[in-house]
């Protein structure tokens, strides 16, 4: 009787290790960027918007998102 092939997950989680504390693929990094963008926007509206306009939060999120996608 031929030996059966071990069952494998259909999609293997490939990724790389950057400055984030875990292995991430592109989708993970996009996800983290979106999550952080929303968090920054909400916190900005709550605490910072009296002093600085909201579009600055957008710029900060964009830069952070780029850093995460590039080196995360």
């Amino acid at each position, binding site marked *: 009787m031929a030996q059966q092939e071990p069952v494998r997950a259909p999609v293997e989680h490939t990724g790389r290790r950057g400055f984030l*504390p*875990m292995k991430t693929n592109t989708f993970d990094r996009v*996800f983290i960027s979106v*999550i952080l963008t*929303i*968090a920054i*926007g*909400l916190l900005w*509206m*709550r605490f910072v*918007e009296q002093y600085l306009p*909201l579009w600055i939060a957008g710029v900060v999120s964009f830069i952070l998102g780029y850093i995460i996608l590039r080196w995360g």
Partner: protein
Amino acid sequence: MRSNRMGWRMLTPTLVILFIVGLLPFLYVLWVGFYDWNVFSAVRGMTWAGVNNYRRLVFDQDFLNSLGRTFQFTFIVVSVELVLGFLLAQTLVTPFRGRSFFRTIYVLPLVVAPIAVGATWRLLVIPGFGPVPYYLDRFFDYPFRIGTSATHAWLTLIVMDIWHWTPFVTLTLLAGLTALPKEPLEQALVDGANRWQVFRYLTIPMMMPVILTVVFIRFMDALRIVDEAFMLTNGGPGLSTRFVGLHIYRTVFPKTDYGYGSAMSLLVLYFTIVACWLLFIALTQVGKQRE
């Protein structure tokens, strides 16, 4: 290539249904969240509000409190249900007399609709009518009042949720425990490991995927609690059991503030996703570090 095309063809009905019942409503809520839409307001129809609904949200103390309360409730019930469910699953995995009968009786709460569970528990604990306050008062001289005591209302809701959902946790974990390979466990016992070591270093790691699934299902489910709390306490006394689902319901339906309600729902979805993601990272990283 051919099998790939066949796979997509087989998946198409599911994907179409998912798109219609999952993605389209989500996109609609996302869209409405950026508008002011109140059918009773002087302005007819929807007016563009940008991020104003979200700006209003981050200062809405009632909403933030209800969100905190919901997370607190979720954390308590999921932890208790997981521990209790695991213990019961461990008990039920070993054969004993009357096991099938006990299993049948035990899963009965699962088949009862949440709204009926809320109504039944209300009949049990309502002062002046229910047996729980009556017997507590009679035998222990303890006044149990869910209508006036926030602690009693909280406690009743927690016990009710645990009673309702522990069978689900038990059944799922039981399925996982039954499917575990026996050889490593027996081998460990032969090698001199005691039962605690087998449980700690073999059963728990092997059960981790099932535990993760159960925790996520229950976590997301507990965050959406509405009907049971609506029937049992209706968010009271005061705002002490007004969970976020109830809070949204009270904003959307009586006030018909659809834009703001959509923004609240999206924020709850956001927090649910973030919490689940963090939980997943924490649980899987702990497993990897142990390896």
